């Protein structure tokens, strides 16, 4: 499997404060990497550094043919913004020089109906808005998808639906997936690799069975965590 991403000694500072320290890992094309860690351990910062949205030390090397789709953590938008979902998607199609029918393609992929997408974005529900953001990321046919907390603001059944959908889209589009998540059972199910950030020591990376052990999780979060492993699907 070809390597699509190599990260070496990545550190990020906000002023004096070191928010991400010495992270190194590689990612294979087509794989799924889950990033976990307690609040404030630098998960979102890592994603932003990977997309080049913030300055960093160290190296982030993407394969030359890489095209990144990015789904940010829940956005704070004003409810009365006079922009429809379609305005938003067409804007990206235009800016990235993608064909106009790309909008229909991504709406079908995330199963968002055109009537829903034609509404002002402030009126969409949490789940619909997440689908819209995913659709936005998929415009221009990216081969890597970076997803920051896909299920923030989405209820429990909605979360599983969303993961099913991300997984389905990933398979359909043959994408590499990097996702930040707190849903350990879903990570166990979908991820091949888990990168665990903590502010105590070195970040660790490995297969879910190696990383998501009760001892390690207790060390990480400071409290015993329980999660349900979907045995029927395997890990």
């Amino acid at each position, binding site marked *: 499997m070809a390597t699509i991403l190599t990260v070496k000694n990545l550190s990020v500072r906000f002023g004096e404060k070191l928010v991400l320290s010495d992270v190194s890992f590689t990612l294979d094309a087509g794989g799924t990497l889950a990033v976990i860690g307690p609040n404030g351990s630098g998960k979102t910062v890592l994603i932003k550094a990977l997309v080049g949205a913030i300055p960093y030390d160290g190296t982030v090397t993407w394969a030359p043919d890489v095209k990144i789709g990015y789904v940010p953590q829940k956005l704070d938008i004003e409810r009365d913004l006079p922009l429809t979902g379609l305005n938003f998607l067409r*804007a990206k199609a235009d800016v990235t020089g993608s064909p106009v029918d790309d909008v229909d393609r991504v709406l079908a992929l995330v199963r968002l109906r055109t009537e829903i997408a034609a509404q002002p974005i402030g009126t969409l529900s949490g789940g619909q808005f997440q689908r819209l953001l995913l659709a936005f990321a998929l415009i221009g046919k990216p081969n890597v998808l970076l997803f920051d907390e896909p299920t923030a603001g989405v209820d429990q059944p909605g979360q599983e639906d969303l993961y099913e959908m991300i997984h389905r889209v990933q398979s359909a589009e043959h994408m590499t997936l990097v996702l930040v998540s707190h849903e350990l059972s879903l990570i166990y199910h979908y991820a091949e690799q888990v990168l665990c950030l903590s502010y105590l020591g070195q970040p660790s990376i490995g297969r879910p069975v190696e990383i998501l052990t009760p001892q390690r999780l207790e060390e990480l979060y400071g409290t015993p965590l329980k999660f349900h492993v979907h045995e029927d699907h395997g890990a």
Partner: protein
Amino acid sequence: MAPSTIVLALAAAAAAGMVGAFAVMRRMVLAADPLSHIALPGIGLALIFSIDPLIGAIAALLVGTMLVWTLENRTRMPTEAIIGVVFSLALAVGSLMTSGEELIHALFGAASQPKPWELVFGIVASIAVMLFVLRERNRLVISLVSVDLAHTSGINVRRLNLMFLLAFAVTVALGLKFLGVLLMGSLIIIPAATARHVARSLNATLAVSVVLAMLSTAIGSLGAVAFHVASGPVIICVAAIFFFVGLLRPRAA
């Protein structure tokens, strides 16, 4: 009132409606008024050195825009706070430098006949501002929803911000002659705020904002002639009436 005065005012109003639609969506409402105030010290300096006041105003607006943009990039403070401080100071300093009738004209405008170069500059600049907004509207849409998304969509956000601020400053300059330093910011903001309230989509917002800015200017200018009063304040009153009528309509979304 000379036809060239009306043509120039309508062109400026159209540009104001277009820029205003995005200024309102980009949470620049509070910034719009003070941003127009920086023109005042420019007008004051121009009068002292016997240069055309409009040239002084344009120069001051461009300097002010670069200043805001630089501070925004350096300090990461919200644009509104920076503009609020810098431009209120400009208004204070400008008032000290200008006096009497000239100050009143600079603040509230005067419906004098434009010189030929002012007419040409006004029309060319109005068209340039509108073309800029129309051409860049998709980049503006993405960057106002999320700067990070704009970044990953390949948009140079810093450059886009600078271009938008410049378009805004040019639009303020366009209205100085007939609306003055104090009222031009209002013509940018009020029709756009009305449009934001009644429209549901981007195109509708742009269209309503432009039409209301032009209608307010046309009705206000004619009304001012009929009642023998200054046109600037009447234009803003008409725009505000449209705003309150718009509020009566239940929110579309």
